[in-house]
C-alpha cells in the first residue's frame, strides 16, 4: 500500500472555490477520517482524487506519482454514498464487480475473483447473479466495497458510505471497513459528517470547513482537545453530548 498525498489542492466550479489549498496525507495502511458539513468541500476533494472533478491547482500524488485517471489500472478506488444509485440496476452484482477487475485475466479467474471478493465482504458467493434490487441497502454497500477492492486499489476513498443506510445496517458496514483495514492493511480516506462514526474507524482525522482543512491530527487528540473553534462547534453538536459534558 502507498500513501495518498493532497498537496495544496484547489478545485473551482465557475467562480466558487469548493476546495481551497488543501494539503492532506493518507499514510500507508491507515484510515484517515475527513469530517465537515455539507458544502464544506469534502466530497469534492474525494471526486478530485479519482478524476471526477477538475483540479485547478496543486497536486494529488499516490506513492509520489500523479494519480492515473486514464487507462484500466486505477490504484485509487472510490465507494459512493448511495448504494441505490451506485450499482447499475440492470447488471448482476457479479458483473458489476467483475467489471472493475483489471483486464488480462481469464473468465474462470474473474469468476473466482468475484467469489473471493463477495466472501471477503460477507456475502454469499452463490448470489453473484442477483440483481441489486434483490439486496438490502447494507448488502449493496458491501457489493460496492467489493467492487472497489476488485480494482486492486492502493488507496480507497469512502464518501459517506453509511449515511444512506438504516442504523441497524450501518454497524455491519463499519465493522467490515475496520476488518478490511486490519486484514488487508487498506489505506482509506473515510469521509463522513458523523464524528462518532469517524472516531470508530479512523486513526487520524481532518476537519474541513468552507473548503479548507482547519484542523488535523490523531483522532483521539483532535476529539479530546480540539484546537479550532469549528471543531469544538462540531463536537458540541453531537446529539447526546450536551447532557454529559
Amino acid at each position, binding site marked *: 500500500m502507498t500513501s495518498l498525498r493532497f498537496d495544496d489542492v484547489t478545485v473551482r466550479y465557475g467562480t466558487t472555490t469548493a476546495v481551497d489549498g488543501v494539503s492532506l496525507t493518507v499514510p500507508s495502511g491507515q484510515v484517515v477520517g475527513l469530517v465537515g458539513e455539507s458544502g464544506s468541500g469534502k466530497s469534492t476533494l474525494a471526486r478530485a482524487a479519482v478524476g471526477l472533478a477538475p483540479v485547478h491547482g496543486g497536486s494529488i500524488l499516490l506513492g509520489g506519482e500523479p494519480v492515473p485517471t486514464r487507462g484500466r489500472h486505477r490504484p485509487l478506488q472510490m465507494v459512493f454514498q448511495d448504494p441505490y444509485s451506485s450499482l447499475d440496476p440492470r447488471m448482476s452484482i457479479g458483473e458489476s464487480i467483475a467489471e*472493475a477487475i483489471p483486464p488480462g485475466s481469464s473468465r474462470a479467474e474473474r469468476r473466482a475473483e468475484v467469489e473471493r471478493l463477495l466472501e471477503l465482504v*460477507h*456475502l454469499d458467493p452463490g448470489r453473484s447473479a442477483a440483481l441489486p434490487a434483490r439486496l438490502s441497502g447494507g448488502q449493496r454497500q458491501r457489493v460496492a466495497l467489493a467492487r472497489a477492492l476488485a*480494482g486492486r486499489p492502493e488507496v480507497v476513498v469512502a464518501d459517506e458510505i453509511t449515511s444512506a443506510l*438504516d*442504523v441497524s445496517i450501518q*454497524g455491519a458496514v463499519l465493522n467490515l471497513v475496520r476488518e478490511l483495514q486490519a486484514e488487508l492493511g487498506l489505506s482509506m480516506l473515510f469521509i463522513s459528517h458523523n464524528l462518532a462514526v469517524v472516531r470508530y474507524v479512523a486513526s487520524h482525522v481532518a476537519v474541513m470547513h468552507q473548503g479548507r482543512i482547519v484542523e488535523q491530527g490523531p483522532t483521539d487528540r483532535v476529539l479530546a482537545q480540539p484546537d479550532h473553534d469549528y471543531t469544538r462547534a462540531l463536537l458540541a453538536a*453531537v*446529539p447526546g453530548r450536551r*447532557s454529559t459534558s
Partner: protein
Amino acid sequence: MQRWKSVLRTPLGLTATILTLAVLVLAVVAPMLWTGDADAVDTDNILSGPSAEHWAGTDNLGRDIFFRTLVATRLSVELALAATAIAVAVGLVLGTASFLLGRRSGRLVTAGINIAVAFPGILLALFFAVVFGVGATGAVLAIGIAGAPMFGRLTQTLVAGVEARDYVAAARVAGVGRVRILLRHVLPNIAEPLVINATIGAGGALLSFAGLSFLGLGVQQPSYDWGRLLFDGITSIYVNPAAALAPGAAVLLAGLALNLLGESAAKALGVGVVGGIPALPAVARVAPAEPVAEGAGHEGSDLVLDVRDLEVTFPGPTGPIRPVRGVTFAVRRGEAVGIVGESGSGKSLTALAVSRLVAETGRVDAERLELLGHDLRGPDTRAQRRLLGTSLAMVFQDPMTSFNPTRRIGGQLAEVSRHHHGLDRRAALGRAVDRLRAVRISDPERRARQYPHEFSGGMRQRAMIGMGLMGSPALVVADEPTTALDVTVQQQVLDLLAAIREQDDVALVLISHDVAVVAQVCDRVLVMYAGRIVEDLPAADLHTAARHPYTRALAAAVPDMETDLDQPLAVIPGRPVDPADVPVGCAYAARCPLATARCREQDPPLEIDAAGRRVACWHPGESPESGIDELGSLAEVEAS
C-alpha cells in the same frame, strides 16, 4: 418483460397492441394475397363509385381502390419504419456524441442539435426532398433525417440523466472506457423510453409520408403507398369520395395505433402498475386478540393525543398491504414522545395518519384517534380542518419542498391565520413576523418578505416550525426534522423544539431513525418494528434498561462518542420486514438472537408493567447466551 406485459392489461394498451399487430400482419400478408386484385384493370368500370364488386370504387385505370389500399399497407409501413430507423440511428449518434466526445466537443454537438430542433420538421423534409430528389428514397431519407434532431435531443437528455448516476461514476473510476460505459450502463437504462418514443415516432413518420406523397414528393408511379392513393383519389373526390377516404382512413388507423401503443406503454411503464389494483374491500375489523394495553392509567383531560389500535392499509398488486398494524399510544400535555425505527417500520405513516395526511389510496382505521378529545376519524369537515390547522403543527423532513417556492415566506405563514383565525392581511402578516422572531430568525421583518430559496436549510426548517406556531398548537409532530440538516444546524432546530415545548407546554412527537437524537430530546420513546410498537420506555432507559432485543440492538448498533473502539459494533442480522410480507408470529423473530419456536408462531402482545412501560416480547429482558451476533452469523442469516 413483466412491466411490458402490464401494458396489455389496460384496455387502451390492449386495443392499441391489437391494432398495431393487425396493421403489421396486413403489411406482410396483403401483397401476397391481393396484388393480382389490386393490379387488375377493369376497363368497364373506370372511376366508378363504390359497388358490390369494388367496395371503394375504382381509379382512372379501373383498378380496385379497396384492394390497392390493402396492398399499399406494406410499402407505407416499410417506408415509415425505414424512416424511423434512420431517425433513431442518427438521433442516437447525435445524442450520445456529447457523452463520448467529452465536454468541449459535446457542447458543439448539443448546439447543432438545438439549432436543428428549432427548424420545423416538414420544412426540413421538403428541403431534403429537393436535395435527394423526388421519390421514395429521397422521402425516406428526408423524413428520417428530419426526425433525427428530436430523437437526438431526447437521447441526450436521457443520457445526461443516467450519466449523473453514481454507477457511471463508479465505472469511470474503475477505468472502464467511455464506449463500454455507454453500451453496458447507459443504453440499457434508457432503452425503455427510447423504444416508446420510437414507436410514437413511427406513427408520426407514417403520417409525414402520407403528407409527402400527397404533395407529390413521395412515392412515384407505378409504386403506390397510402399517400399516393390519397393524391390520386383527391382529384376525383367529387365523383368518388371513397377513393380518397379509404387510404385516408388507413393512414389514420395505422398512425393512431402506433401513437396509442407508444403512449399507453409510456403510461404503464412510467407509472408502474396501472389499473388492475382492486379497490380496498371493506374488511370487518378484527377485534384485537387481547385487550390492548393503554399508555398509562392517567386522566383523559390531560391527553393531547390518544391513539388506539391504529391501522393504515394500502391496496397492493397482490392484496392489501398494512404498513401500520395496530398502534396504541397517548401523548400528554407538554410531553415529548419519540418514535424510532428503521425505514419501513411505519413510523412516518403513523404520524401522517394522526395529521390526516395519508395519501388517498390508503385507509386509516382506529378504535380511537383523538386530538384534544375531538375524534379525528370522521369525515373531513371544516371544523376538523380548523382543529388540525390550529392545534397541530407538522414539521417534515425536507425543508426544501415544504414551502411553495413562488411565494414569500411571510405570506405563506400569514395564510394560516387568515384562513383559520379570520385575521386580516395586516394582522396576519404581523403575526407571521412575530412567529418568525419566535423561531429565532434574525431580522424577521426583512426575512418575511423573502422567498424560500433565500433561506438556508436550517432557517427554512425553523420557518416551517414557525408556520406550525401560527395557531396555538397543543401538539407538534416532527417527522425526521433534522435528517436533511447539518449537525450544527440540527442542534439549533432540536433546541428550538425543546424551547417551544417548555414555553407553551406543547406536546411533541418526534420521529427519527437516530436513537441519539430521540434520547436527547424526548421523555419517552416508542420503538416501532414492522408496523407495531414493540417497546415503550423512558428515554433515559434506552441504552441501559431496554427489554426488547430489537431496542437493545438498535441502541448498540449506533456508535457514539463513548463506543469501545476495541469491540466490533453490534449488528442486527437479516433485513427489515417487507410490509407486504409480514411473517406470522413475532415479526422480529427471524433476526432475534432470543427467538424460540413460540416467537415464530405467536405474535407477542404489548404488555404493560406497573411503571407504565410496555414491551411486546416473549423473552423481555433476557440476554442471549452467546452474546450479540457478530459478522459470522450475519453472513449466514443473509445467505439463507
